[in-house]
């Protein structure tokens, strides 16, 4: 595996720390005028999402992590594993529930997802920023209540629940921002 000197540190570089892959979020040089130079690095654990700060003497080298980001198409799941395909090589890859995280609740099939691979295996999966899904369950809107700006919960075809305006009905299709888990608009079919 490659080693990276502190002089090569930059945001997004992937490092192995205590057996886990990390990505650099921020790298600052700390150099007392008459003292040793250090690189103070803020980085995120790609497995847990936890952010830590570590400091290295400038000039030291740290092992890199074999981490790549790919755009893969989601195919299906069997309840245990979620299957993706690389559209250029048609190679299939399987992600665990742990790697899927919150992405499971937005995917129904065929979406392109950003998948982070570590040593060739999916480490984390991000759903597309916007998804279009059908409402399978929501209380009927109350007539005449459209102007109050109130909301109600709506269950989507993937099982996710989002708050929607009162005028949105069961069976309608809506656009959702998966990062904030919020309703954007109705989609006319």
């Amino acid at each position: 595996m490659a080693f990276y000197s502190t002089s090569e540190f930059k945001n997004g570089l992937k490092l192995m720390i205590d057996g886990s892959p990390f990505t650099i979020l921020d790298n600052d040089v700390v150099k007392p005028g008459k003292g040793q130079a250090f690189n103070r690095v803020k980085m995120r654990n790609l497995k847990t999402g936890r952010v830590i700060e570590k400091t290295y003497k400038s000039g030291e080298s740290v092992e890199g992590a074999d981490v790549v980001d790919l755009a893969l198409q989601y195919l299906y799941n069997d309840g245990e594993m979620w299957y993706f395909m690389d559209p250029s090589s048609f190679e299939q890859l399987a992600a665990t529930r742990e790697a899927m995280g919150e992405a499971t609740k937005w995917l129904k099939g065929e979406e392109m997802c950003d998948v982070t691979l570590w040593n060739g295996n999916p480490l984390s999966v991000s759903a597309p920023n916007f998804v279009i899904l059908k409402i399978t369950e929501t209380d009927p809107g109350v007539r005449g209540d459209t102007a109050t700006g109130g909301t109600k919960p709506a269950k989507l075809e993937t099982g996710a629940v989002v708050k929607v305006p009162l005028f949105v009905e069961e069976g309608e299709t809506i656009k959702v921002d998966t990062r904030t888990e919020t309703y954007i608009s109705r989609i006319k079919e």
Partner: protein
Amino acid sequence: MERRGIMEVETPILDVSGNTDPNIECLSANIRHGGAGPRQFYLHTSPEFPMKRLLAAGAGPIYQIVRVFRDDPIGRLHQPEFTMLEWYRLGFDHQHLMTELEELIRALGLPAVRRITYGAAFVTHCGLDPHTAGIEELQAAAAGHGLASTEDDRSVLLDFLFSHAVAPRLGEAPIFVYDYPVCQAALARIREGDPQVAERFELFLDCIEIANGYNELTDYLKQDSRFLRDNERRARRGLETMPVDDKLIAAMRHGLPECAGVAVGLDRLLMAMLGVKRIDDVLAFPHSGPG
């Protein structure tokens, strides 16, 4: 400076000798002498050595404002070239020179400068006595503050703890930190006592190091042995050893008057006066790092 009878001087930027300080890297340049073969020169990292030669030659109090060069990693507070104000006062000790620097700071509209010993600042913010703590204690404290490197050099551990745990808590107001551990003496004289301390000070504004000064070491034999020890440390770290400035040693042998000197980073001082956070913001044409 003129009102106080401090004479402006100019000294060479290039010299065949370099800075032996193991934590400062010189930039170098070749002079080809019209075909006689290249000869390596170093760009000065501060005008200290030739200014001390002027002091030994009887120049009296002197100052200089000059560009200096260091092969540091480029960062929020670091550029390979920056502007330094350096001056020397005969018969002053470091406390006396701190007072004069404070007068300059006040004249620029900055607030009064508090003073704290290095030891007291360390005890307050790190819970350790930097003069007496053992290596294991320093290592444990460093690990607690996120040092990932294994390190058994006392001076490096103190550099880490001071820059990561102490300096960031010195506060926004100007403060002098003085009387450094002897392993951080650089070119300051050592004062005997319990503990022994180096008569060195630094000025911090908004937790950023602005100036570094000494009650200057005048003993040429001690100076020569510090240069040798620096080069031994450089060799141990796999760094190029630097040609020692024999002209400075000769001048000190002739006699360097008792004096104190200080170097002020003018770009950083300007940052503090303008309240900006990046050195790039006070330079028309900053150098950028790789990537």
